């Protein structure tokens, strides 16, 4: 496999008196910390990483091709299976794209519920990231604490639409279901609990010397690199770029909510950690605003039983928990999409792995894979 390593010039290694042999180490697809079935081929000098190469596709299901053979409604559940950790965001992006093609107005109530559920899902996604990231770095307790809170979110989803993970919560044109009776109360209760819990996680990690030592200065990706690689989401914001699609090109009524965009300067693993923790707090803020006065009214716009968008194309991107999630849909006026292309944040962000890993140690590779926050379902599609 050695010759598949990219031939770009490697940074100079330390001058040592030993003529060290390079070792090629295959990490994954069966490995405890590759978050699914990612395979990384590492070129090592001792424990030092000289280069990496990602091999993906173990979870490829041809989602984009499936879209061409299903009606627009039938394809709805499939998008949930891409980033299954943030299924609601996927559904939102897809619905928004088709709605743009259809040029249909979404009722205010549906928009507010969408925002609430999406932000809940953002917290769930970040919680899973935090747990697994900490687990990769060797802290085995946060993952259980994170799952405890994630469970509350999943229960809200379950009460709302019957599913916990791949929710298929939204329909083209709005919502399928009215919220259940105590939806608002559940959300507010969760918000009250969650703020304290975020502090609890931070207590365990933020000032922990080992944690700081393991994450500060590791996997630095500055703003210019982020632009070169097309990296978005918390990784970009940790590099100091205040770019959040919820603010930059608001959708689903995000312009009505008050929230901050947390940013940091260095763009290392620690900064990304801090940014995501703060993002969870901001999500709590948004959920509070969204559910505190849910507008009344219909939950579905004027969409026919059969969805047949006029010929044309549309690109809609949203701020998914992991970055910019874009849907590009081409319609030929039939029942099926002529072509559907997904811009998955995980896939694009994963491209920067090699840049972030070079010169670091094996243990850092694991931390960096964790900090990019990838979901292989989305990378491979």
């Amino acid at each position, binding site marked *: 496999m050695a010759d598949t390593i990219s031939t770009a010039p490697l940074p100079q290694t330390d001058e040592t008196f030993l003529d060290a042999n390079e070792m090629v180490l295959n990490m994954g697809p069966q490995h405890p*910390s590759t978050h699914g079935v990612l395979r990384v081929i590492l070129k090592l000098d001792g424990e030092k990483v000289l280069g990496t190469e990602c091999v993906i596709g173990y979870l490829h299901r041809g989602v984009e091709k499936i879209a061409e053979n299903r009606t627009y409604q039938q394809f709805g559940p499939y998008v949930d299976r891409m980033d299954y950790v943030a299924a609601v965001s996927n559904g939102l992006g897809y619905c928004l794209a088709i709605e743009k093609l259809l040029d249909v107005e979404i009722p205010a109530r549906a928009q507010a519920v969408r925002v609430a559920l999406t932000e809940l899902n953002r917290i769930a996604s970040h919680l899973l990231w935090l747990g697994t990231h900490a687990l990769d770095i*060797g802290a*085995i307790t946060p993952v259980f604490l994170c799952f405890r809170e994630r469970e509350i979110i999943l229960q809200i989803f379950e009460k709302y639409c019957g599913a916990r993970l791949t929710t298929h919560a939204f329909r083209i044109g709005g919502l399928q279901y009215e919220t259940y009776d105590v939806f608002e109360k559940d959300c507010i209760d969760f918000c009250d609990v969650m703020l304290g819990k975020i502090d609890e996680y931070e207590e365990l990690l933020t000032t922990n010397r080992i944690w700081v030592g393991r994450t500060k200065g590791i996997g630095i990706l500055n703003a210019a690199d982020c632009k070169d690689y097309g990296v978005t989401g918390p990784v970009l914001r940790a590099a100091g770029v205040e770019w959040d699609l919820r603010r930059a090109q608001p959708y689903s009524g995000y312009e009505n909510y008050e929230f901050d965009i947390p940013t940091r300067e260095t763009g290392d693993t620690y900064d990304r950690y801090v940014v995501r923790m703060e993002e969870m707090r901001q999500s709590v803020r948004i959920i509070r605003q969204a559910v505190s006065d849910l507008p009344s009214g219909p939950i579905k716009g004027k969409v026919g039983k059969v969805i047949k968008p006029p010929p044309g194309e549309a690109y809609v991107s949203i701020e998914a928990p992991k970055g910019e999630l874009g849907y590009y849909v081409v319609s030929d006026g039939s029942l099926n999409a002529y072509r559907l292309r997904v811009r998955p944040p995980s896939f694009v962000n994963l491209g920067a792995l090699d840049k972030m890993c070079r010169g670091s140690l094996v243990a850092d590779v694991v931390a960096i894979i964790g900090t990019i926050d990838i979901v292989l379902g989305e990378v491979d599609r």
Partner: protein
Amino acid sequence: MEEILNNPYVVPLIFTLLIIALFPLMAGYIVLIERKVLADLQVRLGPMRVGPYGLLQPLADAFKLMLKEDIIPAGADKALFWLAPVVSTFTALSAFAVLPLSDVFYIADVNIGVLFILAVSSIGVLGAILGGWASNSKYSLMGSLRSAAQMVSYEVPLGFALVTALMVAGTLSMQGIVYAQLERGMWGAFENFGLMIVPTVVFLIASVAETARAPFDLPEAESELVAGFHTEYSGFRFALFFLAEYASIFVISGIAVTVFFGGWLRPFPNVEWLAMPLNVAFPLLLFIGIGAGCVYLLRGLILPEQRAVLAGVAGLCFLLGAAFAVPMVNEKIIGLLWFVLKVGVLVYLFIWYRGTFPRLRYDQLMDFGWKWLIPISIGALIVNAVALLVLR
């Protein structure tokens, strides 16, 4: 009978057999305690299925490991692959030879006890190195290289901390160290006008690294190296490595207890009026309390077999409590109780670290060892030596 017991080989032989027979069981229960404590830290229940509240889980685990297929990977060095877990287990268990579990329960009291333990635990590293090398796997190899570097590095501060303690105690014999603490009426950790606290802390930190436990568990860092040097081991060979790990935790905690925390002595061994409450009332209350707790927990159980097992445990606790009420028996086993309790506290610390800390990186571990622990331990040695000479 008298003659047989007076033979210098008979009693140690019995104790040896007892330790070899009982320690695996005890290691199993240390694992169960670890799982339960970790579960408690992580808002879970831990094992609950095998036996009442998971009490029989260690037995089930042991049987499972014994019945599993024994796999030797292709390309492995068969002889070394076979030898590695044996070396690990053998060295870990042989350290028990000089560990005084109480004033009567010890195998040998040699005058170089500490040196023997240091020597034997140094050989223990070989098990990890051989295992990693013989597995013919890159993960194993990296794990074994890490463990070699780590254990060798952390043996230095460990050794210095011990040397400081030996200097203060004035003997190398493990029993001698305990008696020295009895004579001075003070735990080793607080000796020398409190200066001994530094080597004690160094020893406690270095012992975590020496046994390759979190946060220094790099040789078997799960998220990086899968399982480190024992990645390719399965079945009973894996069980041996597992046993060796817990044996070395017990041994190193035992050394810490013996050298720094008064060994099998009760707290304040020279305060006469505390003998009654600490040596009789305390164990009585402890075991009867545990027994009563078991009886209380009986209410939550439905299955008759599980109730029977828990009732048995409760009975055992009451029996032990009763045993401590008999003066003849009490004076024989009270030392063992204190020793095990003290070791238990240290083992709990090990588990607590594991539940709390993230893992250090390899270079940070080496930095910490060489740039902090070793200079501190050498400094502590010198300061203690001067204090001993000038002040005592």
